[in-house]
């Protein structure tokens, strides 16, 4: 079992706020890790450290052999990591001035140097895969939230990532659109994509996760197989959190 992500005693502060506390986490190739925890517990910050969108003050992160040092001081590694790690955001963050196909083909063209016809062909294949090829010539503003998020996933996949990060990918969606996005993620998991997912969709987590991590005030307090965490949580914090979120 080779670890794609290796986080070693990560500490992060926002000013006086200690957001991540000695976080130790390994993610194996092909593993699906779901991170749960209360609002403000540091879930987003944790996964944003993995692709260097947040710098940390102490510790070490290795992503597919590239070492990210504290304070973001590792330019080449950062570049390598970002080309190999895809990220899907709660707010989609599609590029509104480009059509869907250009959103997907931009990074392969500019980062990998793929020629345009090849990149567009690849974009079409990916859009087909997330069931949205018929919208390829539209602009993001003309799509529903669920469609936009599927485009965002296709855009990340275009860089053929070794790891995908998802930060609450369905939280900004109307309920009837959540399913179509989760379906795409389910399919990715089935194909063996390594994923770190922050989500409040507990039944989805139970279904796709190989491991669930509960984080409280910046520290990992409990982790395990989904059935262990959801059915027999050991830590009182996990118990009270799950009691709260599983009530509805």
């Amino acid at each position: 079992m080779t670890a794609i992500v290796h986080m070693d005693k990560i500490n992060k502060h926002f000013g006086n706020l200690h957001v991540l506390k000695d976080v130790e986490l390994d993610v194996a190739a092909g593993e699906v890790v779901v991170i749960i925890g209360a609002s403000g517990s540091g879930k987003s910050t944790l996964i944003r450290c993995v692709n260097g969108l947040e710098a940390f003050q102490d510790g070490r992160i290795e992503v597919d052999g590239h070492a990210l040092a504290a304070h973001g001081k590792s330019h080449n590694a950062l570049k390598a990591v970002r080309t190999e790690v895809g990220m899907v955001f709660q707010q989609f963050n599609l590029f509104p001035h480009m059509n869907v196909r250009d959103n997907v083909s931009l990074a392969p063209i500019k980062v990998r140097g793929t020629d345009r016809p090849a990149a567009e062909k690849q974009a079409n294949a990916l859009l087909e895969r997330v069931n949205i090829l018929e919208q390829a010539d539209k602009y993001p503003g003309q799509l529903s939230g669920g469609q936009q998020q599927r485009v965002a996933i296709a855009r990340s996949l275009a860089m053929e990532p070794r790891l995908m990060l998802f930060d609450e990918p369905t939280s900004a969606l109307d309920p009837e659109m959540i399913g179509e996005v989760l379906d795409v993620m389910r399919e990715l998991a089935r194909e063996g994509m390594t994923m770190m997912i922050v989500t409040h969709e507990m039944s989805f987590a139970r279904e796709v996760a190989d491991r669930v991590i509960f984080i409280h005030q910046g520290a990992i307090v409990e982790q395990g197989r989904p059935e262990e965490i959801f059915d027999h949580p050991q830590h009182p914090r996990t118990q009270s959190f799950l009691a709260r979120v599983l009530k509805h």
Partner: protein
Amino acid sequence: MDVQFQFDWHAAFASLPYLLEGIPWTLAISFGGLAIGFVLGILFGLLSLSPSRLLRWVATAYIEIFRGTPVLVQVLFIFYGLPQIIGGPIDALTAGIAAIALNSAAYISEIVRGGVQSIARGQREAGLSLGLSTPQTFRYIIWPQALRRMIPALGNQGIVSIKDTSLFSVIGVGELVRQGQIYIATTFNALETYFMVAMLYLVITMSLSFALRMLERRGLVGQ
């Protein structure tokens, strides 16, 4: 009450050929100055967004100086003052273009800064997370969106600068107002001539407004 003075359309149209000679000068100063001002404005606007405190300070100093002094004083300084330093004359056209360029750059840099800052943080993060470098993210993602948002404010600045060139009759450059003044000196038709001068400014500024509105509309199709 008797109407002492009648607006004489004949006289008004008679002034046109003379006034039209001023148009190339007005356009050259306006658009020459604005073109350079746009480049300088982007430069100082980007400096004002730089992580370096020194560079930000340079931008702030520039903006404060050229926004805080009248463009008329600036052009007088360039035309009459600067030759004493460089030891040679500066022609009026160059002085006019330089004054519009330096002055509009101060305002345009603020427009650029505001436009870039108005783009949501998530756009930058999405670009970086795809592996684009910071300059690539700026060039392909942030800048095109910011530029589109800047169009109305840039148009506004364009109109202000075009009107500012009317002050430059003081350095003797033969732009619209100057042509009007010369014409009035021999014909005494101040009412009709200044009326036509005003109309010609309107034609120029409204053409600019119209062109920019077209540009904006075309750009907005996708959003």
